[in-house]
């Protein structure tokens, strides 16, 4: 399943909304969407509410985004991560690394 990426501004945050499955094939798309926007807003929020699958390449991509934003003193948020996303973050023991917000 391909990954669909939508980027929009919500207040001060640039929201990267992704839908589909994140694996070795699609994670470069997520990486580009996140890293392209670093520095263009006060922060980046990755909306993961409609992700059906994520593996460690997706987790590594999120860590990269987190580090890129932190280095520039920008906020990096995970917005409403789906159950499969939370599952792999917990398995990797990285769920406490990220600021997670549940949006309506």
């Amino acid at each position, binding site marked *: *399943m391909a990954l669909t990426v939508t980027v929009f501004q919500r207040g001060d945050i640039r929201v990267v909304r992704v839908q589909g499955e994140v*694996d070795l094939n699609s994670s470069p798309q997520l990486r580009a969407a996140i890293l392209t926007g670093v520095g263009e807003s006060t922060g980046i929020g990755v909306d993961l509410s409609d992700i059906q699958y994520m*593996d460690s390449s997706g987790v*590594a*991509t999120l*860590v990269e985004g987190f580090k890129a934003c932190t280095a520039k003193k920008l906020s990096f948020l995970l917005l409403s991560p789906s159950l499969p996303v939370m*599952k792999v973050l917990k*398995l990797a023991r*990285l769920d406490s*690394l990220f600021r997670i917000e549940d949006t309506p």
Partner: protein
Amino acid sequence: MRDADVSVEVASDPLLLGPVRSLVRTYLEALGIGQDLRDDAVLAVDEACTNSIRHAYGGPCDRSYWITLRSAPDWVEIELRDEGNPAPASKLERKELAPPPGQEHVVPGGLGVQLIYSVFDDVTFCTGEDSGNCVTMRLKRPIALKQTEG
């Protein structure tokens, strides 16, 4: 006598990870493995495939790896074999995953092998002298799931 329930050759193309996940998910479902364990096992097999594509072969999509699925009444075995560069032993060691002590210590990547260890009951890695990797991953089948309904 047959060696396996399913045996497939897969091109080392990341595009095919989705179909591989579907195959493994469907197979485990047919054996009555519950959804939580099934999802975890599919993730771990995906990680093993990703390691072959990314590290053993280093990118080209025209190589192959092989997945073999076997079962017995009390276990399921998934074996993945490639002909790529052998992984260094240090990358295959089991390590305790722990919350990162600080953001400067978080390194993206390297999680796949640890996820495999965390999901399967028994994991064996073997590497060839010059080429090739093999990982055999075993799950215990819960007794209750083997009972037929009705």
